[in-house]
């Protein structure tokens, strides 16, 4: 971590140690959780289980959380990431079922997700509705549309015989032993990191998230950048939608909303990874890892399912508390 090397002027060793702990709260929380579960359950620290965490818990949530991170970076939030997932999934599965080529269906799916983002962009940048309310509206409208399209919420199944190879490959294939969804997630992680930290768009987006009026007074088209961020969020969420439906070979209406709260949680846990509390992709990914490991670990300990969210909640408090101390130090 870069922040480890920055404290050259702290003479006191104990202060330095405290600094390291506080500056890396998220990484240490991750290590602590790994350690606890490794001791608590014998099956946790096995290759099979760690793989299972990555494939079953991590991949999809990471992609959705990155979509969320773009919305949060411009100072907004996207409550309709689930809608983008569902629309993408619906278009993808329906077109494949109708015998269309998988590539075409996938593109249509991405287009459907981007369209959800574009709808949000019109509400937010065009009309000026706050992101929270605009995307909440999209969430409700999206749910209704799906019920109308599926005569009240019936899943759209692909018959086992009718699953094209490319479709199956997207969900369950591997390249050099690595699951395809994980590879896609990794590409998105790298791409999103580059965009937010090194691209002009990312710099402007973060500046908008911090103080939009100054960005406007600097001669930058704020609303256009906000629109792009929300379209990107829809597009990235759509990728998760494609992978989800390719994995389970079915479209289930409104199933995408299951990711919403965890994606928000991971994104805001992730902001604590930045010294200045800014949204950032590495932090979001660490947040997703943390949530994934806790979900998996609590399952293995045999803890009552209903207690699992208590664990998640406590974890969020712990990370936020540590970072709060950090922030206070940074701004004192």
């Amino acid at each position, binding site marked *: 971590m870069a922040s480890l090397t920055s404290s050259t002027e702290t003479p006191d060793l104990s202060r330095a140690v405290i600094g390291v702990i506080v500056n890396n709260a998220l990484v240490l929380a991750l290590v602590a959780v790994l350690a606890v579960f490794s001791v608590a359950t014998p099956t946790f620290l096995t290759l099979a289980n760690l793989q299972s965490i990555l494939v079953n818990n991590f991949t999809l949530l990471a992609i959705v959380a990155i979509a969320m991170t773009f919305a949060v970076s411009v100072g907004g939030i996207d409550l309709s990431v689930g809608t983008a997932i569902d629309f993408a999934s619906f278009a993808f599965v329906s077109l494949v079922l109708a015998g269309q080529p998988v590539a075409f269906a996938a593109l249509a799916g991405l287009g459907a997700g981007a369209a959800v983002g574009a709808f949000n962009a019109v509400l937010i940048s065009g009309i000026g509705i706050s992101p929270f309310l605009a995307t909440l509206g999209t969430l409700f409208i999206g749910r209704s549309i799906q019920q109308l399209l599926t005569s009240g919420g019936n899943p759209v199944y692909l018959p086992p015989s009718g699953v094209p190879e490319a479709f199956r490959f997207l969900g369950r294939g591997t390249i050099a032993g690595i699951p395809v969804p994980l590879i896609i997630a990794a590409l998105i992680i790298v791409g999103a990191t580059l965009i937010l930290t090194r*691209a*002009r768009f990312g710099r*402007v987006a973060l500046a908008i998230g911090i103080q939009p009026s100054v960005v406007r007074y600097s*001669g930058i088209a704020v609303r256009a950048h906000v629109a792009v961020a929300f379209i990107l969020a829809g597009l990235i969420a759509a990728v998760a939608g494609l992978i989800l439906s390719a994995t389970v070979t079915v479209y289930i209406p409104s199933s995408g909303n299951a990711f919403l709260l965890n994606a928000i949680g991971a994104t805001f846990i992730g902001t604590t990874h930045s010294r200045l509390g800014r949204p950032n992709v590495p932090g979001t990914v660490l947040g997703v890892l943390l949530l994934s490991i806790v979900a998996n670990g609590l399952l293995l300990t045999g803890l009552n399912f209903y207690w699992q969210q208590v664990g998640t909640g406590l974890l969020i408090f712990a990370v936020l508390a540590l970072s709060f101390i950090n922030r206070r130090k940074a701004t*004192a």
Partner: protein
Amino acid sequence: MSAALTVKNTAADALHLENIVKHFDGAVALAGASLRVRRGTVHGLVGQNGAGKSTLIKLLAGLHQPDEGRIEIDGQTYGKLTPHQVEELGIHFIHQDRLLVPTFTVGETLFLGREPRIAGTPFLDRRLMQRRASEILNDYFGVRLPNSALISELSTAEKQIVQITRALLDQPKVLVFDEPTAALVRREADILFRLIRRLRDEGVTIVYISHYLNEIEELCDHVTVLRNGEDVATLALGETSAAAIARLMVARDIEEMFPKRSIAPGKDILTLNRLSSRGKYHDISVTLRRGEVLGLTGLLGSGAKDLIRTLFGLETATSGTIEIDGKPVRSVNPAQSVDRHLALVPEDRRANGVALDLSVTENITLSSLKRFTQLGFLDFRRERREADDLIGRLEIKAAGRDALVRTLSGGNQQKVAIAKWLSRHSEIYLLDEPTVGVDIGSKVEIYNLIGDLAARGAGIIVLSSDLPELIGITDRILVLFRGSIVREFVSPETSPDEVLAASTGSSEALRHVG
């Protein structure tokens, strides 16, 4: 440590901070500063930004603890103060920047945390609250503010009245005013001064912090001057002058304040032709030439602000034309204006001028990012070089190029706001109250910078209500009154009185209009 301590050492001190030392992360904020305030007096506290004023006040408020030194209140020595304790001791702070919650009502703000209840019930006694608030508002300010009014509906002056009233409800012993007039017009400031004198006569001790030395001269009994974390002098106002105080603050002669330079004006860069905006200003015709510094002044509602906003594309004119370099333009948003090399340094610096939670570098290059972008990605090395270059050229004092602008003094924040436009290679600068809340040393540097820009061929419009400043740094001055240009002055040939008379629409002054 005091050069001319004239406040007598009596037990009648309301406050006595002695040899206070305070470090922040290794940097010295206070290096043995003392402040002794006699009970029932108005005591001024002045110093440039970074001199230690706010640190000293935060120590007194219990927000920080001193590393060394002691704090004596009413003859009682305290090692550690908490904000709660300070309030119990009857010390209250009126802070210009202190945010009131906009969605609270006046009543909620005044009585937050100490709501009177109807005896024997958990219910708030709204009638008693309104009565007690009205008494003070009426008696001290002669105004009526219903407790049900929302804070967001109040003017800046009224918000300050609410703050002061909240303090008065507690019958304070000491009131500390921190830059109280920064956002007030003169008439409102006069009301405040009358109030402060009255409170003093009623036995309240006042500590008054201000950049405006004329206010200190007018209002205070004594003044303590801080420089580099030490008190360099405590003087009785009868025995000193604003110029002498300013010299102590900067250790520099005031004559150097307005570095005058003569630049031969070049071609026309900006021409306004009968520009009008319904209800705001009308028939404004102005020509600005390269190398020229044009002053603009007018009271609130004169239309001067709206004119500046129109030029930057924040508003649109209803008729008339704007030409830049001889070409007619029509900007409907700031992005278009910025592309036409216009730059606005807005008055509300902390809201619109700089992003407080972005770094110095990020602020400086915010408007010129395209220059450091290749294929959509930023070239950090060139960006850093640009930032270092401007930090050096403008002598921006910051812990580093990565320091948050929030951590800079007002003067240095303003330099960052200007540096942003230098990086954008802007050519027409609209400076709206460019030195509000800026310390004297930085003011001089900003004046120098304006001169430099003009010398490089930029056209500059300065909107300022600080008339000596306006006369000192501009070539000519246009006075707006009720939306029209009523007078034009050649700066070296006029005086603040003359300009002020014109901007208040005094018939005497207007008779000269030819």
